[in-house]
């Protein structure tokens, strides 16, 4: 019997320490057939079980074109993430998914792309960045604007150097600089002035804390972005991933099945900021 709540076994292939509180886990389903059939769109997420500790939603941060595995980039914030951080190569975990709508990548063809993210919000965007990089010819110019607390917490800095070499314009900013920091200081919106993309032919993909998304949307609108050109990935409390538990309810929509990606026009319709 298959139930949508049943975790399937997967194994950890690799663990990489990214920053002091963040690790990237590369995993694959134990059942090779299942792994083979597995595909996803960037922005989708999985429900990940650490047996005995619980289950949490995690965005897939690896390339959708790499089919032998998937990866998660996880910040240690609580019970389950803490337990996950003690996993080693070869350990087992449970997976369900993928869930959510993901970014509508086909609709971005021929367009410039602006990625805006804060902190761990880069996880789902990384997957989209890989997708864009893989099919470079299909897209226009690509810019990535990334805001972090401090230089030590910048994720994927090595990869970003590579992306830079591959023609993606990468810009980072921090709230609290270290003495050695030579880059931009301030919130991520303070980078927008550097963007060379003309709003008409660009889509913006956003992921990060609620405040960041709120202000980024305002600033982008000022720059001339239309609501249909901006896509944000929302974080909500989730327990099931399939619209049963109702934790991620926003108005009549569910972040887990109708989202987590919403365009700004949809966000306007929804009571996102209920307070």
């Amino acid at each position: 019997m298959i139930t949508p709540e049943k975790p399937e076994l997967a194994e950890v292939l690799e663990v990489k320490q990214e920053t002091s509180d963040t690790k990237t886990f590369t995993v694959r389903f134990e059942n090779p057939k299942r792994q083979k059939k597995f595909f996803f769109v960037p922005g989708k997420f999985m429900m990940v079980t650490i047996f005995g500790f619980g289950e949490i939603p995690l965005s897939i941060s690896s390339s959708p074109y790499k089919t032998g595995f998937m990866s998660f980039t996880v910040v240690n914030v609580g019970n389950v993430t803490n337990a996950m951080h003690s996993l080693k190569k070869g350990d087992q975990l449970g997976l369900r998914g993928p869930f959510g709508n993901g970014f509508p990548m086909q609709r971005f063809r021929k367009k410039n792309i602006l990625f805006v993210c804060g902190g761990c919000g880069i996880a789902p965007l990384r997957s989209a960045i890989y997708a864009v990089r893989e099919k470079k010819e299909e897209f226009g110019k690509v810019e990535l604007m990334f805001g972090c607390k401090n230089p030590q917490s910048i994720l994927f800095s090595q990869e970003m150097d590579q992306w830079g070499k591959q023609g993606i314009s990468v810009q980072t900013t921090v709230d609290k600089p270290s003495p050695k920091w030579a880059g931009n200081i301030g919130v991520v919106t303070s980078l927008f002035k550097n963007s060379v993309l003309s709003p008409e032919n660009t889509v913006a993909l956003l992921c990060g804390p609620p405040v960041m998304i709120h202000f980024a949307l305002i600033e982008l609108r000022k720059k001339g972005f239309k609501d249909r050109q901006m896509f944000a990935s929302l974080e909500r409390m989730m327990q099931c991933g399939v619209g049963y538990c109702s934790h991620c309810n926003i108005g009549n929509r569910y972040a887990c099945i109708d989202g987590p990606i919403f365009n700004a026009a949809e966000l306007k319709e929804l009571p996102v900021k209920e307070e």
Partner: protein
Amino acid sequence: MKLASKKAKVGFFSLSCCEGCVLAVLDLEEKLLQAFKQIEIVESRLLMEKVKPSALRLDIAFVEGSVVSKHDLNKLQYIREKSDFLVALGACATIAGIPGIRNALPPGLKEKIKRQAIKPIKEKVFPLTAFVKVDYLLQGCSINEQEFLDFLNKFLHGAKPRLQEVPVCFECKLRENACLLLKGEACLGPVTYAGCDALCPSQNVQCIGCRGFTNDANFESLDALFKEIGLSRKERYNLFTYFNQLPEQLKHLKGDR
């Protein structure tokens, strides 16, 4: 925080209190013996004469009682320093509880107490959280043994237990009790943290708030309700300050005693 194979070193400490919480732990009896397979009690004045030499560092310290004197404070700081994880046990330790009634005594009585005290005491009684970082709270007067066991079990497996932040009414409804408020009796259930399985309302007794006020309490509304039920100002003051300090929102209840 993986403990896995090694036995966890555990200490039980009592500051000023009735020691009912540690006794409640002892009442787990067989289950405690079973837990002993995974833990080693290295310090407990109630149980043993000498502190084990291995007690220099503790994996987990359970501290009951509140801080009423410098002696208590020193002891608490010493415990905090040597323990990886500190759990406050019971109302005295988590919210100052019954001893905290002293804090609201009128100045005359307070003076009297000060004069009477032989050993130095603090002007006010404080829960542990007022002085040191507390990693987990086990609420209640006395604590709920099952909750203790669940916590210990989670801890020994290396999990980070979370506080369940729900009011007593939540559990009261699950036990399908007739609501006391609806019967016209005062009850602190709506503003008190659950975890006790709604013990008091299930025995037809009002909740007296021994597990502390929730972070989401609507005191004004409940106070208005109590007034409607017919409680005098003094009675309402009495009830709200049974185990807890009078919340800001209810300052108007304060008056001469």
